[in-house]
């Protein structure tokens, strides 16, 4: 196999990888804060808010992400009356689907982090005179994020690989280009290249999170 051929198939695949990375970045940046808001909603003392958040998390975690993506891309436009206004750009729709889905997982991860914090931390903050906001931002959240870090890392790696679901809604990403070349040239090389690109991406993430875990070790 010539080096020129190799470069000729690598180029579109790297462009596809850009789409993968872009979706990953948008989804992670939006779903982490949304997940945190959901965590707070679940803990809200106003019951309807808590119920809504719990049902939301149940539905998002209880149905396949692929189904959710297909629903947003192809299902929403079929709704009567409002359907015409819900025809989204495929990539925008995918970003929306990934964000809504991953927020539910992050909400559960953060909830676990909050539950792992001893009630003595709240009591110590109270007797020192800290108000609720100061207790949350200075004492509870920093510990919650530290506790949640390994699980967030795990979820992020899953997200990188889940971006391949874009294939199903016909947004050209890494796997799409690989598959195109496989069909055109009848060669399995693109599959290996795609695999290696995913591995590089997840390796970068793993290294980043290991660094974060070291950085916030507290002992």
């Amino acid at each position, binding site marked *: 196999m010539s080096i020129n051929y190799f470069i000729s198939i690598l180029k579109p695949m790297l462009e596809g990888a850009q789409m993968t990375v872009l979706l990953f970045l948008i989804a992670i940046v939006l779903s982490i804060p949304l997940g945190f808001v959901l965590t707070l909603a679940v803990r809200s003392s106003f019951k309807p808010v808590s119920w809504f958040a719990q049902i939301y998390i149940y539905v998002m975690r209880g149905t396949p992400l692929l189904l959710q993506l297909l629903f947003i891309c192809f299902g929403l436009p079929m709704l009567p009356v409002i359907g015409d206004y819900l025809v989204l750009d495929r990539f925008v729709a995918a970003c929306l689907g990934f964000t809504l889905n991953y927020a539910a997982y992050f909400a559960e991860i953060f909830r676990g982090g909050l539950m792992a914090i001893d009630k003595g931390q709240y009591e110590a903050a109270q007797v020192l005179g800290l108000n609720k906001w100061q207790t949350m931002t200075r004492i509870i959240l920093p510990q919650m994020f530290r506790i949640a870090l390994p699980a967030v890392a795990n979820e992020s790696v899953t997200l990188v690989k889940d971006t391949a679901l874009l294939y199903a809604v016909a947004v050209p990403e890494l796997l799409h280009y690989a598959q195109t070349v496989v069909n055109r040239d009848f060669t399995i090389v693109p599959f290996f290249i795609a695999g290696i690109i995913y591995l590089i991406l997840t390796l970068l993430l793993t290294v980043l999170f290991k660094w974060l875990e070291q950085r916030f070790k507290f*002992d």
Partner: protein
Amino acid sequence: MALIEVSNLKKSYGKLDVLKQITFDVNKNDVVAVIGPSGSGKSTMLRSLIHLEEIDGGSICISGEYLVRDGIYSKPQEIKRITSKMGMVFQHFNLFPHLTVKENLELAPRLVKKELNAEIERRSKELLEKIGLSDWATAYPGKLSGGQKQRVAIARALMMNPEILLFDEPTSALDPELTGEVLQVMKQLAEEHMTMIVVTHEMGFAKEVANRVIFMDNGEIIESGHPTELFTNPKFERTKAFLKRSLK
């Protein structure tokens, strides 16, 4: 006038009365040891003084201001102001694990009292010296022994300049060989006339350092008095039985 006046304190969980008509006073500079078997309500009583537990009836008055009067609590802002006269040291230290020793000491003065940095740092340095942990200022609590953690917790409480310090079994979570260093710091505070209420199983501390001992059992104060008197000549059978068990 007493610094702390507690009268007819009542609390129950369902049908279980954990505090029944608790009444006592604490004067300025008193060191009061509260002793009694597990489940006697002594921790609940102590925690209610600083509003970590809500009581169902009775009054708590701290230096002339009612935290709760005949079962009715003051407004939240008032409660905050009144409880800020007290500091609390917990059985399990409750240091903030994500902050260094120095940051643990300086966080509340900075956020709550909004004092000048120079003053806060001067005081934290002085207190770390006092508890003998100057070299540990930048360490995280995870690196400290239990005794060191509890000394830091005491210093953290002192940073807020409380009039009264409450201790909830401060040595119960420590290995026996580490209790001495904590009791030493508490003894020093007593000598400096800090007003202290100490819920404890350390009969030695109660005898040596306290000027009054309160014996609680089953949600009631059975008797209280000067330690020499209470330890050598208890009036009630329940006190005698408890002391016999604890002093063995």
